[in-house]
């Protein structure tokens, strides 16, 4: 099977998973608060546009790293 080029890594939220729990799962080396802050800054498509704010959806693409340089 042909190789895929490297793209930005993402996860999808689990059922009832909070942002802090997701941050802990995706960024275990960060504190939950710092990890959540990073996740927010990398995923403004969720945190800038969601009503109600902060609602995480099972279908969301949540990036766990910044855009690739």
């Amino acid at each position, binding site marked *: 099977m042909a190789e895929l080029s490297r793209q930005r890594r993402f996860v999808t939220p689990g059922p009832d998973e909070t942002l802090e729990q997701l941050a802990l799962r995706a960024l275990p080396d960060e504190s939950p608060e710092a990890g959540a802050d990073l996740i927010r800054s990398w995923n403004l498509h969720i945190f800038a546009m969601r*009503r109600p704010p902060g609602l995480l959806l099972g279908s969301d693409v949540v990036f766990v790293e910044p*855009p690739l340089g």
Partner: protein
Amino acid sequence: MAEAVIVGAEMVAGHDGTVELLVRLRHPNGAEGPVVLDEETGLNLMAACGAASVEDLTGQSWRKIVEGVRCST
């Protein structure tokens, strides 16, 4: 700690025929990425930043975008 900042913003034509605001963020790793805001959120972002024009958004923290959406709801 370094954090993502707005390095540019411009109006774009939204899929639904409205004007949307495309905000370009530069992250601490030097990479840039766009965020598209609907008309109301874009106007609220400008208000939250005290921006008289979209050019004034440059240099603002990504956190202002979240403030913008809070103002919209």
